[in-house]
């Protein structure tokens, strides 16, 4: 690799050797320690590439061997400079272009925010602007990326972590949103445990709170299983309750039923040779469509997007890029499948849907599945699965009720 680079710097010549004794020519070159890079046989001879300095020594060898030497191409920096040495305007323009690129690459031209919720983007942009990260800002003015990160993380509620990468003229901001657990209730606040599904109670374990349920009882969705309202009065005296954070597990036999329609064929999209390419020029954060209106007349097509960014050595992304959108025509091919296969596919999907909604420690007891044909190319599949599962979920007790009836003691009943 390094040798190729030096060859390119020093310049090399691609020549065609033709005649009867070209093998002899190669052997003499080797004997005189002339390194030959790529060789390729051609009609009546061979094409080789030799260094610029070695080329001068070939003339005598060619004469001795009786072969003809013809230059096909001159390559490398040396030949390039030699060719354009009198084109002063070209030279000046090249220097100006390079200078412009280096000057423009010291500014930020694009700020990209990834992973943030759409509602958070204006607020994040403003915070980045306050910290000096905005379109048109000088890169050298942004000194402490860590301070920017810490400032945004500490002053924003919904963001768990944030990264700011400076890649050339692009500021790439990646956001990781804080995850919130919906079912989580503060342990110091009173709550009850209610049912999430209908079923027959198998076992009840109460750690805090009060329940009237026993094994064999039927419950419906939304019924209170373990109440956070605990009686704190003797019979005959005034009603007084203690409100606690209910804790416990309620296992019940439940039945989940789901139906889905399944086609009796699968659809495969096959790419055709026809395709259309549209290019968009990305210039310092702004996009310019090079083809006017995009017209894709294909009925079905697949889209592929590539972004080619101009990256300068040492400075990275220079703010110029070409976005290529390739629209490939596709044909939709229907492959018929048997009713049994369609049934199996739909059942697997239904099982996955049902099981993904279950909590931990759930136990599958039984499964029944069946199907009926509703048209020539469609069946309806029904899947019924019975489980033993924990059906309890926490629900906070309304504050008005607590104020009306009594005390709270979230530490336990």
């Amino acid at each position, binding site marked *: 690799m390094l040798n190729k680079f030096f060859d390119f710097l020093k310049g090399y010549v691609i020549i065609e050797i033709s005649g009867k004794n*070209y*093998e002899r020519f*190669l*052997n003499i070159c*080797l*004997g005189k*320690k002339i*390194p*030959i*890079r*790529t*060789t*390729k*046989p051609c009609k009546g001879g*061979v094409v*080789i590439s030799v260094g610029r300095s070695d080329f001068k020594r070939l003339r005598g060898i060619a004469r001795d061997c009786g072969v003809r030497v013809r230059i096909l191409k001159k390559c490398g920096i040396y030949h390039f400079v030699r060719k354009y040495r009198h084109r002063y305007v070209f030279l000046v323009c090249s220097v100006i272009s390079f200078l412009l690129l280096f000057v423009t690459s010291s500014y930020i031209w694009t700020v990209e925010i990834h992973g943030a919720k759409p509602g958070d983007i204006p607020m994040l942009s403003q915070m980045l602007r306050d910290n000096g990260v905005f379109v048109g800002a000088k890169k050298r003015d942004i000194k402490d990326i860590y301070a920017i990160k810490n400032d945004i993380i500490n002053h924003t509620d919904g963001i768990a972590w944030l990264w700011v990468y400076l890649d050339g003229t692009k500021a790439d901001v990646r956001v990781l949103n804080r995850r919130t657990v919906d079912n989580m209730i503060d342990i110091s606040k009173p709550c009850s445990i209610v049912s999430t599904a209908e079923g027959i109670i198998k076992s009840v374990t109460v750690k805090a709170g009060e329940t009237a349920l026993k094994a064999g009882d039927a419950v419906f969705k939304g019924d209170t299983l373990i109440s956070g309202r605990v009686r704190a009065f003797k019979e005959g005296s005034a009603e007084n309750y203690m409100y606690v954070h209910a804790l416990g597990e309620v296992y019940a036999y439940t039945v989940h039923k789901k139906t889905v329609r399944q086609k009796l064929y699968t659809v495969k999209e096959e790419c055709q040779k026809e395709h259309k390419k549209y290019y968009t020029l990305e210039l310092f954060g702004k996009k310019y469509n090079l083809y006017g209106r995009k017209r894709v007349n294909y009925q079905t097509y697949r889209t592929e997007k590539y972004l080619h960014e101009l990256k300068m050595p040492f400075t990275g992304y220079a703010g110029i890029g070409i976005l290529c959108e390739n629209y490939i025509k596709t044909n939709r091919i229907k492959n018929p499948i048997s009713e049994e296969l369609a049934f199996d596919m739909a059942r697997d999907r239904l099982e996955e849907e049902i099981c993904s909604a279950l909590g931990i420690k759930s136990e599958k007891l039984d499964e029944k599945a069946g199907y009926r044909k509703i048209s020539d190319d469609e069946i309806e599949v029904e899947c019924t699965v019975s489980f033993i599962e924990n059906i309890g979920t926490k629900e906070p007790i309304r504050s008005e009720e607590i104020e009306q009836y009594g005390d709270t003691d979230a530490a336990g009943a």
Partner: protein
Amino acid sequence: MKRLKERFADSFSVSREAVTDDAHITMAGNSEIYIENYRGIIEYKQDIIRLFIKDGVLLIEGRGLLIQSLRPEDIFIRGAVSRVEFFNI
């Protein structure tokens, strides 16, 4: 003399081709051949390459054979090699 060189190489754990000038041939699958200690090229075409090595001729047959690098001490050939044969002279 050759026997003596071989015995010397064996007793000092030196590779034989370093002492005896025998050709050292390395193949990577059937797409690359690297030959050290060759003497010269006898024939070079897209489907056949014949090399002169010590004590004989090495024949390489295949499709699209291409000499990638040609130096006095080694030669690197690329292409779909189908046969490698050695002829004693």
